[in-house]
């Protein structure tokens, strides 16, 4: 790993820490974003985009819909789970007691309870959730964010598509195929950026040498000279990708205004506290800063991995075992606080009309409690939350049956999710046809 710098940030707990910007040799294989100016917009914005920015909050691992936003308190004990229900601000709509803050903010988003999708596993389900299509037959279709990135192009100082996690989102050792550009090419992959629970920001695409402080970098030639030390043994095409990645990252850290988007220390202590001292909390705060910087598409991942309590992996929502304990101890308190703070911030700062927020997992979890008193994968029914871009809020669209097993209204698919996102981002049907993306997708009419 090439290490070419570090800088100090003040953390939530007030302790100065070194934040490292690092780049590994593997970057070009998975994280290649084009160089500055290399991503060009497919077309001029003839269509008015209601959403300047889209934040796709990905609850990777798949939260149980019954234990969060679609409880079934009258189902029998084989299904209902151990949690009580609480009213939301939306008349007649209840959540479980694990999400009190989001229940109090149900007027700020619209809930969809009738999602379905086709793939039952994480890698394949993740690909469907993020692209609208199954991973086979190849080539893999692009992530929704890659479509927006291609449509908008690289116009500002920041890349058009960010994925916030401490690396490419993975299930075990396997990444989601649709994490990036897929058949459109690695040039439309997301630019990766991660945050620690104390607000240190990590940009894996960069490696800064120890004797270079990115807050004071001004001599491009010096830095380039240092980068010449990078092993040239990389395959030439991949090295070109890497070099473009470096150029873009270099642009980020040498441009003061671009760099500010990543500097969570510019936020007040109170603001950082509202999001909570958790990786997801500080990542959500980073997402809000990227919205303010007018980044077109931000995929905010709850965790890098799906696994819960598995050595070597970030703990995600895949709760085949001890679902109820993990939800009440960790996931729901973290999510409830951070996502509520994020919604509040986007509203309070007047960003909501120009920002689309979509929050969902790749599927739901079995309504019927499994043999280990937990819940397995369930792509037949799950939920999402939508806010912003002029969408009416405080509503529930769709419904599931008495046990939460199947929608009893028109099913909403990931392809419809992607098509709706694209439409609100100004990628209309003509543009989609010209780009040959989201083929056959329909907009979720009920949202409008």
């Amino acid at each position: 790993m090439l290490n070419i710098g570090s800088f100090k940030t003040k953390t939530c707990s007030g302790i100065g820490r070194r934040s490292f910007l690092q780049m590994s040799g593997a970057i070009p294989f998975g994280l290649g974003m084009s160089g500055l100016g290399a991503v060009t917009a497919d077309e001029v914005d003839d269509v008015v985009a209601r959403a300047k920015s889209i934040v796709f909050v990905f609850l990777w691992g798949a939260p149980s819909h019954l234990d969060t936003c679609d409880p079934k308190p009258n189902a029998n004990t084989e299904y209902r789970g151990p949690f009580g229900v609480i009213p939301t601000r939306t008349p007649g709509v209840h959540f479980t007691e694990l999400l009190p803050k989001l229940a109090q903010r149900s007027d700020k988003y619209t809930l969809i309870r009738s999602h379905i999708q086709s793939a039952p596993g994480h890698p394949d389900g993740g690909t469907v959730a993020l692209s609208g299509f199954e991973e086979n037959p190849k080539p893999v279709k692009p992530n929704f964010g890659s479509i927006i990135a291609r449509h908008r192009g690289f116009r500002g100082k920041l890349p058009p598509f960010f994925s916030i996690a401490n690396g490419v989102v993975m299930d075990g050792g396997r990444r989601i195929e649709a994490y990036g550009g897929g058949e459109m090419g690695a040039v439309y992959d997301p630019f990766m950026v991660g945050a620690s629970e104390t607000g240190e920001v990590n940009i894996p695409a960069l490696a800064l040498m120890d004797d270079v402080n990115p807050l004071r970098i001004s001599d491009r030639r010096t830095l380039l000279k240092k980068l010449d030390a990078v092993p040239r043994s990389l395959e030439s095409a991949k090295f070109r990708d890497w070099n473009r990645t470096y150029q873009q990252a270099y642009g980020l850290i040498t441009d003061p205004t671009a760099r500010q988007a990543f500097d969570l220390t510019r936020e007040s202590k109170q603001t950082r506290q509202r999001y909570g001292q958790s990786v997801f909390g500080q990542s959500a705060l980073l997402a809000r800063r990227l919205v303010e910087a007018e980044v077109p598409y931000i995929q905010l991942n709850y965790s890098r991995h799906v696994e819960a309590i598995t050595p070597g992996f970030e703990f995600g929502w895949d709760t085949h075992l001890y679902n109820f304990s993990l939800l009440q101890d960790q996931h729901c308190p973290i999510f409830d606080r951070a996502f509520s703070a994020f919604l509040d911030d986007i509203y309070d700062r007047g960003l909501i009309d120009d920002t689309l927020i979509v929050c969902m997992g790749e599927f739901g979890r079995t309504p019927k409690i499994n043999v280990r008193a937990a819940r397995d994968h369930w792509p037949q029914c799950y939920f999402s939350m939508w806010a912003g871009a002029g969408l009416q809020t405080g509503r529930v669209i769709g419904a599931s049956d008495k046990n939460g097993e199947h929608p009893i209204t028109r099913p909403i698919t990931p392809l419809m999710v992607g098509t709706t996102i694209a439409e609100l981002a100004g990628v209309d049907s003509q543009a989609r046809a010209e780009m040959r993306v989201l083929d056959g997708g329909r907009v979720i009419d009920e949202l409008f």
Partner: protein
Amino acid sequence: MSYFRGRRRPSLACLASLVWLVCLSVMVVQAADPIRLTHDGRMKFTPVFVDGGESLTYVDFENPKVFRLRTMNWETKETKVIHEAAPAPEFDPAYSADGNYFSFLRATGGLQVSLVIRNRKSNEEVLIPPEPGFSGYRTPAIAPDSSHMLFSFANNFGQDIFRVEMNGQGRTALTGAKGINIWPSYSPDGKKVLFTSTRDGNYELYEMKPDGSDIKRLTDSPYQDIRGQYSPDGKQIAFVSHRDGNAEIYIANADGTELRRVTRHEERDDYPTWHPDGKHLVCVAERDGSHDLYLLPLSD
């Protein structure tokens, strides 16, 4: 019978009286301001006093991939990781009152959680592996005389409390796999076990004899009542309830009567454990988005 049992539809007068009683009790149960014991703000779980209060062991959510067992010297308040070289998440610590045994859980694979029982004098360990597939143990509790121990284990569509000898042999199911049965806690004399169960719908507190007989329900709330712990004299229980809108700590008599609220904060107060003096609780409190250990002085 608990003060709250059978009162799902109280009259307004009863409700008003109830609220007043709860308010009164809140005013007397916490004697002074909480004392913050840690300052790192990371998520923490399940503190438990060790060796008569010489130290406190808890679970530190060190980073998004790791739970670590950490111990605090009670006199100096200095903390250290118990197993520096632990390659995997470790959590749910339990100690015997006589100091002879230490038990905890260790993740040994993908959603595979083993139970470790360690003799603290000989350092000999028994590791009870989970079953194949997604499987594992939770919430061990060791009998005061170290004669046996309990743990929760998910199987057959439920989660039962089991009893084993300290060598891991002789596994016996106690509660029947009806619903989720978890967080067993022995009374100081070892004659009763407090636990949480969903056998009647949602999480409520129950007591039973150590052989699983004579199960009695102690609480009745439409929201969670969980993680019960007997006081050192066995006369009271501390537990967590969401009955007032979020996770708060309550105390009641050991039979569930005379409920008193200890904490009152819009953020989370959770994982109570009694100090051996019986006059304090230690809990994990979320304040300003950070989680730390706090000492709660109680009034008489």
